[in-house]
């Protein structure tokens, strides 16, 4: 009797990795994303200029050897700002996605696994959140909460003299990240719930019950790991979406405040002068487009790699 066993044990993940590597677009996406992570991590050591240093004699310069992407209306090096913008974009994408994922996974898993009233209530909340136009919701949150929070922080500073209350970037980050996470979690919750609903009736879950394992262990070790595949796909697409979202908000002026560079506010600034200085719009827009497409390629590749049943 012989079992079909390959030479060395292959985990499902290793199989998936092998399939992913065969997908050229996904590999290209992965390389671009890796480059982004590298640039975001080592930004300060990579930029040719300080992203804030202005050179009023060299404003709106076209791309050249000294300034590969030219300079903006204050004579700041566009490449340096793009690199710093990558930090913002990456930070936003990761934090927003993680927070949204945490909320979505916990709520979705509990709702899907235990069902009942909690499940119904969760679906109402997600339906409600998803039915409100997302941009509008974020605009409302930021517009209505920013001032009271700013005032409160100033008052706290006056009381305590703790410099942390003078950091206005903190408000930006909390508000921007918070409101973006608030609109981003429902799709994750629904995805996880749907996965859990289908997985909890699979034979191996019944088999785990027949072993007398507790619900918690069944959920953590039998249900959730099998839902990971589609979750990873959703996350990789979600990271791209979060970056676009952040750019959209910065573009509208409710995202990260100047002078912190963000691709969105660079696009916004570039848009005002693009007829005269197209590079100021093109550079950030192109970078954003390339990164977004890279995330989508990776997401598609992961989808194929983790769901081999769709292939021959």
């Amino acid at each position, binding site marked *: 009797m012989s079992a079909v066993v390959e030479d060395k044990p292959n985990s499902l993940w290793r199989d998936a990795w092998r399939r992913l590597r065969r997908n050229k677009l996904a590999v290209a996406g992965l390389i671009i994303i890796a480059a982004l992570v590298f640039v975001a991590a080592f930004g300060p050591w990579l930029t040719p200029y300080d992203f804030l240093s202005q050179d009023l004699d060299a404003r709106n310069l076209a791309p050249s050897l000294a300034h590969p992407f030219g300079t903006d209306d204050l004579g700041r090096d566009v490449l340096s700002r793009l690199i710093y913008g990558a930090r913002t974009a990456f930070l936003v994408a990761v934090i927003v996605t993680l927070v949204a994922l945490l909320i979505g996974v916990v709520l979705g898993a509990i709702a899907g696994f235990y069902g009942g009233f909690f499940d119904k209530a969760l679906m109402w909340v997600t339906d409600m959140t998803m039915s409100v136009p997302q941009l509008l919701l974020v605009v409302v949150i930021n517009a209505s909460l920013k001032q009271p929070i700013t005032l409160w922080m100033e008052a706290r500073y006056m009381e305590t003299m703790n410099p942390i209350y003078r950091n206005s970037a903190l408000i930006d980050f909390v508000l921007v990240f918070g409101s973006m996470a608030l609109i981003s979690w429902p799709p994750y919750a629904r995805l996880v719930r749907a996965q859990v609903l289908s997985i909890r009736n699979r*034979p191996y879950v019944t088999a785990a*019950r*027949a*072993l*007398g394992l507790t619900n918690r262990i069944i959920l953590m070790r039998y249900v959730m*790991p099998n839902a990971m595949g589609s979750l990873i796909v959703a996350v990789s697409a979600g990271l791209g979406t979060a970056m676009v979202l952040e750019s959209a908000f910065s573009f509208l002026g409710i995202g990260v405040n100047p002078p912190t560079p963000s691709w969105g506010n660079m696009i916004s600034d570039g848009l005002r002068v693009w007829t005269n200085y197209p590079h100021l719009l093109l550079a950030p827009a192109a970078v954003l487009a390339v990164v977004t497409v890279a995330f989508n390629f990776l997401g598609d590749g992961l989808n194929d790699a983790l769901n081999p049943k769709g292939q021959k």
Partner: protein
Amino acid sequence: MTALLDIKSLTIDIARDNGPARVVDGIDLTVAEGESLGVVGESGCGKSLTMLSLMGLLPNKIKATGGSAHFAGRDLLRLSPKELRKVRGAEIGFIFQDPMTSLNPVMRIGDQIVEALVYQKAMAKPAAMQRAGELLELVGIPSPRDRLMAYPHELSGGMRQRVMIAIGLAGNPRLLIADEPTTALDVTIQAQIVDLVRELKDRLKMSVVWITHDLALIAGLADRIAVLYAGTVVEDAPVDVIFDRPSHPYTRGLLASLPTLAGKAMDRLPSIGGTPPEPGRRPPGCPFAPRCSLAMPACNDALPKLAPVPGSDPRHRVACFVTTEKGAA
């Protein structure tokens, strides 16, 4: 022999929009200590649901609504979910139909066995891993220590079913319930699995309930056979009695539809005409009457009860007016 498992007039209903439909209609079954019982019947006769109800594993909307199921002195149908969870695996092991889907695809074989040992026997992980290797050896898996690290998809169907059996045995159960464990396997592998379970049963002194629709397969394994039809037991007898003197027309039909070596290759196998009645639409009388060639008017009026077959083995019981009355006359 004392009864380890004693199911009495068990009923199971499916909740439907237009009211409950009865799927299991008063099943009586006993399994003695160390005995192996074959439960035979066609799809939908309630054999799997009966066994799942013992473990509290019935799907949503399906509930055991009546009767009792005493296992080692306790009524399983009346245990709290928590108490029942302690019975599962530790006292009653379960082997499922499809080994391809009954193992967690993202966990190593060894970890899945260890899980059972850690939670049922409160074993420490290293000791449990050691024991997992022994269990794999017990169920006849070659180079068991290496296989501990394998994922389910790396094993063939027969190997996976052996792993399932190893997991089922991990808690040292007194009763092993096998729900059509060979249906998804090749014929040669089926025989190996049957042999393995018989051997393990003798070695570990367990009772076994083997659910199947394959009479021929069970012949070599069971001490006693219960034939189920439309949610009731229609015949219950030691295995050789069933094969020598089948009394219920349904059992006879089942046996007649088995291929024999004596038959000519071109002969069509006899089959029983018609289909079993749907749950909720069962006739008031004998559920088999509409398909039965021997049916008498009385068969449509009342449900026959299990009764000893006159002149047969004392343990041979059948639920059929034709047989019992003819014998009495």
